[in-house]
């Protein structure tokens, strides 16, 4: 499900089936790191869109969680996001990011951090872009399905 009125209304009706939340986690860097940060955003959004298409009926893509990457407490409210999502009924919470610093903070977030190094998509042709994203996404598809299966057994 996407973060829009129609899909979230459906989510509220079908909660028992939609047990997974995907949070795009993106730095909001307005300094010299701006382009890099924007590239990460672009990449993560495309990836998440692809996954949403595959698993529409079981997951909700939340609004992006943007943070100021140079603050000391840059990672501090991720745990709160996870907490609220779990309270809303999501059994599985995935944080999608291209910022490798999140890997060391995984534990404190209480969620599963999926770190995917971003690829500058620049003026790549659409079809090349799609196949690139699709290849990345395939591995993630497996991670997600694995998580679902583990929670059943």
């Amino acid at each position, binding site marked *: 499900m996407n973060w829009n009125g129609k899909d979230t209304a*459906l989510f509220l009706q*079908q909660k028992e*089936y*939609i047990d997974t939340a995907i949070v795009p986690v993106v730095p909001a860097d307005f300094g010299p790191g701006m382009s890099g940060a924007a590239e990460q955003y672009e990449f993560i959004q495309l990836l998440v869109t692809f996954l949403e*298409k*595959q*698993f*529409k*009926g*079981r997951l909700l893509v939340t609004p992006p969680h943007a943070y100021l990457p140079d603050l000391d407490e840059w990672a501090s409210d991720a745990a709160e996001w996870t907490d609220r999502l779990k309270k809303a009924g999501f059994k599985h919470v995935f944080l999608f990011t291209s910022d490798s610093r999140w890997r060391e903070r995984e534990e404190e977030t209480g969620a599963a951090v999926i770190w995917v190094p971003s690829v500058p998509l620049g003026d790549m042709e*659409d*079809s090349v872009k*799609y196949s690139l994203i699709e290849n990345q996404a395939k591995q993630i598809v497996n991670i997600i*399905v694995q998580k*679902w299966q583990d929670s059943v057994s």
Partner: protein
Amino acid sequence: MSKKQPVSRRQFLNYTLTGVGGFMAAGMLMPMVRFAVDPVLKGEAAGDFHPTQQKVSELTDTPVRVDFSYEQTDAWYTSEVTHTAWVYKNNKGDIVALSPVCKHLGCTVSWEGNDHKDKFFCPCHNGLYEKNGKNVPGTPPLKPLDVYPTAEKDGLLQLGKPEANNV
């Protein structure tokens, strides 16, 4: 005590009525505007076929995944969308092209996914469909997979807009 201007009953009614009236006017105008601009919005009329790269002669009785893209106008912006179909020839030799969108809550199904022989499988809540798209009772989907109208041009497969499947 209060020096603030209280909203009088009359003013209040006035405000609300203007508000409601505004909505009603918008409600009446919107369809008119829509009719007026509709021909412009209708870039992709229903029944249009989209080309694919799939050679019709290479289709067999095993469903294969066919991806195809075309431009779609969504509100004011145009983007390239990619769709997928599962395509095979049935025992009468007719081409069958099924939409991969699960009729339960919309995940993407795959042919023989997760080792389900001769079935389409939905990984989200273990939905199953027969090869002709019919939903397997007892699994979450309540309707068969949609079918694409098909056409052939220069030996290549073309697909229309998915429709309800009466199998």
